[in-house]
């Protein structure tokens, strides 16, 4: 992933980097490749936005790997937000045919370091978050 740099050429970042990752980029990746990409970004203090989110199984493994990487001297874990499921979408014929895993995998998802991102508001159509530098 390209890194953010100051325009004065010093190489030091003075802002918060946001990585918007398309569904197309995630499509060919294995579960652990996705998790590694997300957590590497978060460890660097970046906010990672996934266009199409993760499947429930991938979310489960993301929690597990995140827990293994928490350390008292720095990384406190992640903040992760997706839109809550809507009843109407769950009840759709397509949703029932495709199964809940497919249904859940199409939600835009925001992931960041727990000590830098705070969710202010969330409903079925809006996620509002406050991002600080650290």
């Amino acid at each position, binding site marked *: 992933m390209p890194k953010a740099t100051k325009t004065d050429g010093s190489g030091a970042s003075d802002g918060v980097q946001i990585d918007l990752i398309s569904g197309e980029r995630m499509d060919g990746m294995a579960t652990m490749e996705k998790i590694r990409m997300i957590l590497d970004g978060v460890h660097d203090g970046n906010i990672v936005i996934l266009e199409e989110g993760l*499947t429930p199984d991938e*979310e489960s493994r993301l929690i597990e790997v995140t*827990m*293994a990487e928490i350390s008292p001297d720095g990384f*406190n874990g992640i*903040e*992760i937000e997706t839109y*809550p499921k809507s009843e109407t979408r769950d009840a759709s014929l397509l949703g029932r045919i495709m199964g809940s895993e497919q249904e859940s995998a199409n939600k835009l998802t925001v992931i960041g370091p727990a000590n830098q991102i705070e969710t202010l508001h969330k409903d079925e159509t809006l996620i509002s978050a406050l991002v600080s530098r650290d």
Partner: protein
Amino acid sequence: MGLFKGLRNSISRVTDRLFSEQEPKRIGIYGPPNAGKTTLANRIARDWTGDAIGTESHVPHETRRARRKEGVEIERDGKSVTIDIVDTPGVTTKVDYEEFTDEMDEDDAIRRSREATEGVAEAMHWLREDVDGVIYVLDSAEDPITQVNTMLIGIIESRDLPVLIFANKIDLEASNIKRIEDAFPQHKTVPLSAKEGDNMDEVYDSIAEYFG
């Protein structure tokens, strides 16, 4: 080799499920930290076996290892249902040892946070591999629409596990059961106070109905 091993494991899981109808089902008690999971597990275990499962505390992450109580036989309407209760650590996506420093010294807080992270990972592993049904416990005085709750319910649904939602702490003034029913309308919500023992008849009726 990996493919054959995977196939063999899959076939083994299917046959286990087909031929283990008489085996007690393992019911995982899941939920966020401080929802009252261990208080509930202890209430059920004491009511039907006389023994407790674990230590209860107001400090988050008191339960840092999954604990199983085997062969809990619950009698309803002349029939009995036998389950194994698995009390799991509260699931979260973040753990900061400084949360515990008001209650203990720094070394103990660091140790507690490390054990808490291991406990969460263990709980997720149980959920993927080793439980047959889930009791999802929520503090009814808290907002249920959190990312952890949404994700965990999604993970449970994706595994086709039967799930009951227990709206705990109805003895608190701020308790709001409707907020939980509205957040997860696809699942049955049972109100209770595990601490006070309120509405336990409906709790046991529901367990027998869903997991019997």
